């Protein structure tokens, strides 16, 4: 499974794409595959605060519920309306159209994982 090298990751299976002072956040293909078909996603509203490794929402498949942990501290500036309407985007394009929120941040957490480190983590699982 190819985890894009331009992204950073958490051990809770979120990815983050940093562009300037804005971070796009999603869950990894590995997490999406483990969940099964996502049928519901609960996301914060624009303006909400997110805190590193604190819960910012949840995703449900037919068989399970999984909480979403923020990879970054900041403020939500955009929520993916498409993924709320069509949660299956998380399965079909976890690293692209299945993105969840965009967060404006001041500082990056120091211990985000690289793609290689996340590869290693998921190989153990």
């Amino acid at each position, binding site marked *: 499974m190819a985890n894009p090298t331009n992204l950073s990751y958490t051990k809770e299976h979120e990815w983050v794409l940093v562009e300037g002072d804005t971070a796009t956040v999603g869950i990894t293909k590995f997490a999406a*595959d483990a969940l*099964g*078909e996502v*049928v*519901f996603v*609960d996301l914060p509203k624009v303006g909400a605060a997110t805190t590193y490794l604190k819960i910012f929402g*949840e995703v*449900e498949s*037919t068989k399970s519920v999984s909480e979403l942990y923020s990879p970054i501290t900041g403020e939500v500036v955009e929520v993916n309306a498409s993924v709320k309407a069509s949660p299956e985007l998380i399965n079909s394009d976890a690293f692209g159209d299945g993105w969840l929120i965009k967060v404006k941040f001041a500082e990056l957490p120091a211990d985000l994982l690289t793609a290689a480190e996340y590869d290693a983590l998921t190989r153990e699982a």
Partner: protein
Amino acid sequence: MKTTPLQPEHEALGASFTDFGGWQMPVRYANELAEHHAVRTSAGLFDISHMAEIRVSGPQAAEFLDYALVNPSSVIAVTKAKYSLICAENGGVIDDLIVYRLADAEFLVVANAGNREVVAAELQARAANFAGATVVDESDDWALIAIQGPKSAAILQQVCDQPLADAKYYSILSARVDGVDVLLGRTGYTGEDGFEVFAPAAAARQIWQLLLATGGSDLTPCGLACRDTLRLEAGMPLYGHELDLEHNPFEAGFAKVVRLDRDADFVGKAALEKIASEPIARRLISIVGEGKRAARQGYEIFEPGSERAIGVITSGALSPTLGYPVAMGYVDASVSAEVGTKLEVDVRGTRLEFTVSAAPFYKRSK
């Protein structure tokens, strides 16, 4: 963990696996929603070889099963099947079963995977006073493959030497598939028409492969994830959820299965007679919600605005066929739970409204 004879097939198909009743079983092959819809609209193929097959034979076989189970097997016609329960002396449910009558003195009892040992041991113990009945756990000898859905009979007919059109629901027949002697039960756990193919374990892979090749794009391999949503929509209980030792058959809505109206004794009869004569303490209800959030096993049920829980969800999911959440759960029998009654479920800290519904949620059109 145990694997079925079809494990190499599942791996070749890229299945994801889950632990179920001590078995490593396919939870999905690709997409459990597509698998669910395939069974409702076309056909799906399931490996259910983890289920237990226990043979009961001998001149006293029928008389023995009448004593061991809550409904009589002696009234089952040869080639027919019946849903049954095996209860403990106190009336708690040890397992739910299907009893197939293969011949006058020959029955096949199918039990849940996780209850194999306890059901086999109970039947053996209960047979102690029946010298003319033999109980043999044949689970390791059998593979069980379910083909379910509106196109299942047409697909199976292409590879089977016996006419299937005349086979009634809840019947069983002997047939040959690919030169292999099998039993075909017209039974299932999906709410659709379909068959369960009992095949020798050694022949499981060739029959699985033949069925998939024959069904082509009309037949989708299906995992346990969709098996669960299919049975939930069809209002069928799952042992460990709606049925267990802590609940009696009357609470679970199975009063009709318990045949107290017979002279002969059976295990649990005295306790069940007493339970039947008293008001029940709780009852299993079916509820439906709006939106997309499922009420899941363990979530508490409330009357609107009340802080005191009146019950708990036993199974629930966003129904793939209906598009809204459906669930079953036990509530205090003192609470009014007529169809249409509004209730609330605590979904991880949020109260969501649900409405008591008739069961089942889904019924196929015939």
